């Protein structure tokens, strides 16, 4: 019996000793979190890797595994949730965040980071963009403005005898003149976007509502119809490229601008990057100035965010990483590499955005870089937005191709929205 007790005591002592030795090792084993970005690799690999390295240095107990997702981001996200291997931090835009949150895929981040901290870090509107049902579902990250800046080819403008438009009314009024006198399109508007119903943006920027006071779709008033009619007339007259119905406006505009076939681009400074690559001569001549705005005289825009999936196994660590990537210093560092608009309130005072330059990208960056407070899609995406946007887009297309009158197209779409919108 004595022998047994001795053995048991020895075993216990050894066991405790081993536990004591292994406990610090276990405590130090880093928590691995998975981080997904969207369309950032390979161009921004150095920035992402450096930021991750800085985060890991500041948080030695956390290890970050980074993947850049592209076309299949949403499908991969859904599949990973299904397979029980959800990522911990995911880069989504405002629209996708709204849809994911409505479907219960995301954690509200105001439960992970104090709301007061979020409010003091970001502009109120950029935070509101990621708020669904009164809860914040994303850390706002880099943004862009739909109107942003106006960049133009001065030779085509001189040939057409026009000056840079100060507002959208002026721009629309010079569309015919530019095309008739130069053969080049004045501008490529976003006419159709099944994923985002971009035409609704024109209504918003003219101060027209998308919903009524009860939250029903209400974009078929005579004022809405008049705007659509204006675009339909110009499209039918051949003043906008046919391909604008099939291709993304930004992609088409930058492609045609570099070929001297479009005089103006309204949008973010990122268009200049492409022009610099494809036609450096034209890039050097390009003039950058303030964007023409609609009657509401406001900019609209969108931003990326970082969200924490409901299925994340390490939400606290994930929240740390998301907060780190989206903090002011890291967003400013990103803005120095590519002309994004930081969503942090402190960015407006950063000296980087106060430097004057003749280089088009630098000038555009200075013009809009500190405009994060204007990042606002203009209206909230409706529930069931995929079906609703598809229907809206189909109706706009029918109007542009003369299959429906603008009034019938908007009436039909409003009817469909109100029958199918999840509130």
């Amino acid at each position, binding site marked *: 019996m004595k022998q047994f007790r001795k053995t048991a005591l020895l075993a216990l002592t050894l066991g405790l000793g081993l536990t004591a030795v292994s406990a610090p090792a276990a405590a130090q084993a880093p928590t691995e979190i998975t981080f997904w970005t969207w369309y950032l690799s390979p161009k921004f690999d150095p920035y992402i890797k450096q930021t991750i390295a800085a985060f890991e240095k500041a948080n030695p107990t956390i290890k970050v595994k980074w993947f850049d997702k592209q076309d299949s981001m949403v499908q991969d996200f859904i599949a990973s*949730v299904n397979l029980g291997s959800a990522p911990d931090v995911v880069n989504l835009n405002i629209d996708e965040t709204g849809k994911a949150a409505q479907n219960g895929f995301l954690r509200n981040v105001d439960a992970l980071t104090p709301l007061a901290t979020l409010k003091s870090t970001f502009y109120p509107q950029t935070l509101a963009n990621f708020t669904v049902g009164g809860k914040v579902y994303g850390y706002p990250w880099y943004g862009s403005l739909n109107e942003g800046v106006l960049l133009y080819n001065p030779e085509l403008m001189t040939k057409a005898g026009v000056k840079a438009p100060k507002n959208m009314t002026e721009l629309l009024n010079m569309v015919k003149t530019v095309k008739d006198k130069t053969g080049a399109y004045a501008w490529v508007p976003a006419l159709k976007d099944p994923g985002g119903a971009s035409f609704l943006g024109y209504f918003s920027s003219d101060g027209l509502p998308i919903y009524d006071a009860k939250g029903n779709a209400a974009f078929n008033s005579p004022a809405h119809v008049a705007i659509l009619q204006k675009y339909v007339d110009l499209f039918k007259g051949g003043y906008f490229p046919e391909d604008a119905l*099939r291709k993304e406006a930004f992609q088409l505009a930058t492609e045609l601008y570099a070929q001297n076939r479009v005089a103006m681009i309204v949008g973010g400074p990122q268009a200049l990057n492409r022009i610099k690559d494809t036609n450096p001569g034209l890039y050097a001549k390009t003039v950058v100035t303030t964007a023409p705005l609609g009657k509401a005289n406001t900019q609209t825009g969108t931003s990326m965010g970082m969200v924490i999936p409901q299925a994340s196994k390490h939400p606290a660590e994930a929240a740390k990483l998301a907060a780190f990537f989206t903090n002011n210093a890291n967003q400013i560092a990103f803005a120095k590499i590519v002309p994004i608009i930081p969503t942090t309130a402190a960015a407006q005072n950063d000296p980087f955005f106060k430097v004057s330059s003749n280089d088009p990208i630098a000038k555009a960056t200075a013009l809009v870089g500190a405009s994060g407070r204007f990042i606002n899609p203009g209206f909230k995406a409706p529930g069931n937005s*995929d079906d609703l946007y*598809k229907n809206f887009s189909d109706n706009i297309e*029918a109007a542009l*191709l003369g*299959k429906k009158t603008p009034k019938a197209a908007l009436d039909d779409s409003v009817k469909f929205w109100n029958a199918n919108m999840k509130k």
Partner: protein
Amino acid sequence: MARSQPFNARQPRARYSLRDTLLSYGFLAPALILLTLFTFYPLAYGSYLGFTEYGGARFAQGLAPKWIGLENFRTLAADPLFLTALGNSVKYLVIVPVLQLASLSVAVLVNKNLPGMAFFRAAYYIPVVTSISLAAVMWDWVYNKEGTLNWALGVLHLIPEGSFFGWLNNEQTAFWAVMLVTFWRGFGYYMVLYLAGLQSIPAELEEAAVLDGANSWKRFWSITVPLMKPTILLCSLLSTIAALRVLEEVLVLTNGGPLNSTYTALMYVYSKAFQGFNFDYGLASAAGLVVAVVALLLSVVNFRLFHESDGGEA
């Protein structure tokens, strides 16, 4: 003329030992396991999902599919977009006979032992291995308003210059323009299958027919076509199913437009299952099941057609 044994002819029953049987199943097992995992199970589960509500919030919360009977099929029957999409997919079958005839004809031509034939065989196959994104850029240049197709038609005075239009932007032409890309992509694949079939025809048969004084047209109809029937049936089935499943070229060239004129049933399935976060696996599975049933019916028609035209043997 010598004929091969029909596959449905009564054969004397062979006797196999237990060892032989076990060995046979042992060899079959890896393939059967993989087929079960990646074909039969998804097929059965997908068919089951077609009768359930599954997706969206239900999926995110980890709730199991909810059986709703025929509800998804009722939704599909009432959705004009699905009916348009299914109609377009069925219309797409026009490509099948054209594709088969063209690839068989070219296979016969390149089956000759002439100098440079290897180059042509390879050249026809290039579109099969060309990535769809690259093909999309290339065909965009062809179909654009200022593209090579309009230019060529202009040079030939078939279209006056003022009437140029984007072939993919026009409701009347987009569907056929996309179909031509499908033809271009599939042509080489079927040609290679036909070429393999042609090369398996015993040379003695051709030689005997030549000695009998049969001309090349007679030899084609009396020797080539009958012996190629199994290959023709296979290619016809494959291209029928491929036509019903067309997705990639539509997505990258027109995204279903203009006015949904190129929107196919598989695009509908894809959009319901994988686009955005409102994915509806139940409805998408039901739509997929409808497409599968149509494909099955058309396969039966194919079998019947070749079975009957061959006097009961395929």
